[in-house]
């Protein structure tokens, strides 16, 4: 797996699906928040972050994810993480991300939750 961070997003029904690749660190986290903000400012409130191709995250990357979760909570939005690697899943669990965001096995399951 490449550690260089990339992402792409698409509208699926009433939801924005963001698919990431690589290391979610300071750079990755910033890009993720920028992409999120772009869609959020356009009025989108439902998001799925598909992290199938991101197996590594550091605490700075997590702080950006928390920022996204807080913004969505403040505006009545919802975030679902999907396709989580077991290590990432455990990391998010310990860092408390699942208190305010959900997780799903895959994107299709996540979309059904909205």
């Amino acid at each position, binding site marked *: 797996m*490449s*550690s*260089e961070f990339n992402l792409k997003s698409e509208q699926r029904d009433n939801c924005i699906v963001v698919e990431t690749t690589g*290391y979610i*660190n*300071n750079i990755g986290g910033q890009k993720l928040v920028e992409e999120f903000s772009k869609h959020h400012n356009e009025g989108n409130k439902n998001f799925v972050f598909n992290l199938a191709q991101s197996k*590594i*995250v*550091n*605490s*700075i990357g997590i*702080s950006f994810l*928390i920022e996204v979760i*807080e913004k969505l909570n*403040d505006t009545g939005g919802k975030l679902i993480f999907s396709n989580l690697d077991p*290590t990432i899943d*455990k*990391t998010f669990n*310990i*860092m*408390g991300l699942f208190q305010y965001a959900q997780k799903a096995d895959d994107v299709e399951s996540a979309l059904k939750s909205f």
Partner: protein
Amino acid sequence: MVDKNYHDLVVKLSLQVESFQEGFGILAKSSSLRELAQNFNHILRGSLLVIDSSLYFLNKGNKEWKKLYGKEIDTEEINEFHNQKLNFDIVFTDHKNYKAAVSIPLLNGSHFLLFLGAKLDKSKYNDTDRILIQIFTQLLDNSYQALINNQKEKNLVFELNNRVLQLNSLIDTGIEISKLQELENLFNLALERAVTITDASFGLLCIESNVSGKQVFVFPEGLNSGAIDDVEYSISTELLYQERKYTFRLANKESRNGYVDFDQTDRMLLDAFARQVLAAVENQHLHKEAIEKENIKRELSVAAEIQDRIIPKTLPIIEGYELAGTNLSSKEVGGDYYDCKHLNDGRIALIIADVAGKGVPASLLVSTLNATLNAYLEMDIPLPDLAKKINTVVYKSSPSDKFITFFIALLTPKTGELDMVNAGHNPILIRKKNGELDKVEAGGVAFGMFDMGLPFEGQKRIFEKGERILLYTDGIPEAMNENEEEYSDERLEKFMTDRFSESAEEFMSALISDVKSFTKETPQSDDITALFIERK
């Protein structure tokens, strides 16, 4: 009059108590300074009915004011007002840009400045307004403290969770790397975890050895390892194991405000990761050693079994002759072999051989020799031809580093006629009745070295009554004592010359005792094999 104003104020404030509480509830929920400022603006303007309002913020330690909302106000004006009003103060003025200015110092050393425009009803600010402004700015101050405390609490929870995560990762990594067989995967995983858990930008593991040179692992992959020399912040740790130096290095700790230096926890984590890696490397090494030892043990057991099947348990009884044989295996089972057997034509074959090497390969070659020899001995062919045929078989069935030194004598018991071939083996010693020692030297190369049709020279002689013959392998003359001195050919020949009165069994027993008395406690490094025969 004063009483009436006071009464009006009390009435007004009483009516607004609920809205103050509601306002504080809204302000206290703000998740950022800018959101707090926006909320404050809405509440203030809704209550005071002013045309406009501007709020500026000076963070502790900073010199630049930040506009949170409202009109642009000249920086010099702001600084001038701030310098005059370091404490809380409300000033009503006829300034062209604002009609009221409020200085709000905060507990943490930061500062708000609030500028209010004219009131919507064009009336001047009065004492009631002053009290209202004071109440609202107090709400702002309290909400700001709540925001700071809330952020501190969040940061604290985040830090605590992160510590738990770090410990968890350390434990998980230790378990995961102990399961990895490939060292390269082990190093890569440990490095990746060390980088991510300390928020380093990148990391490097360099393994240096005088034997195998330098090996470098980097994370993120594809990074130029030289880049780590130009970083602002880095930490490293070094460990030595089996003449290899393991250097772990992490560079540029990330933060949301750029790179920062690593802290004591990061150093402890890096040390812990490094020790885990070394422990895993050491465990792998010990595991491999244990497997190798087990394999050797199993191999030796197989070799011993093969050798045990081939070496004769008892020697034949030959009228007019007395025989004794011995085979003492060393710790590493070798390829010594001897035999004494009746042939169909009444002759006796006396054989001794020594395969170069130890263990199963040597034992299998002895087994091949034994089978081939048995087949050819029944064909009654001249010994030099027999030697050539066996040489070909051994050459084809053995690796290039394996060969067999071999001696065979065919004895006609009635006449004492001896027909012999020595293929690269130690000289066979014959003690004549007069005490002189004859040696049957090699008449050809050892089996398995060449297959170029080289001839083997046979020798014949009569084994006279009273003569004694000793066939032996190099385990006897090359037996070593603690000074690394050999028992030697000379000592063996002297023993053979001097000892002539004992029976065959007694001679063999005395020979072994002599060798053991020479080597004392030194472990036996090679098989000791000998066959002794005396014509009565």
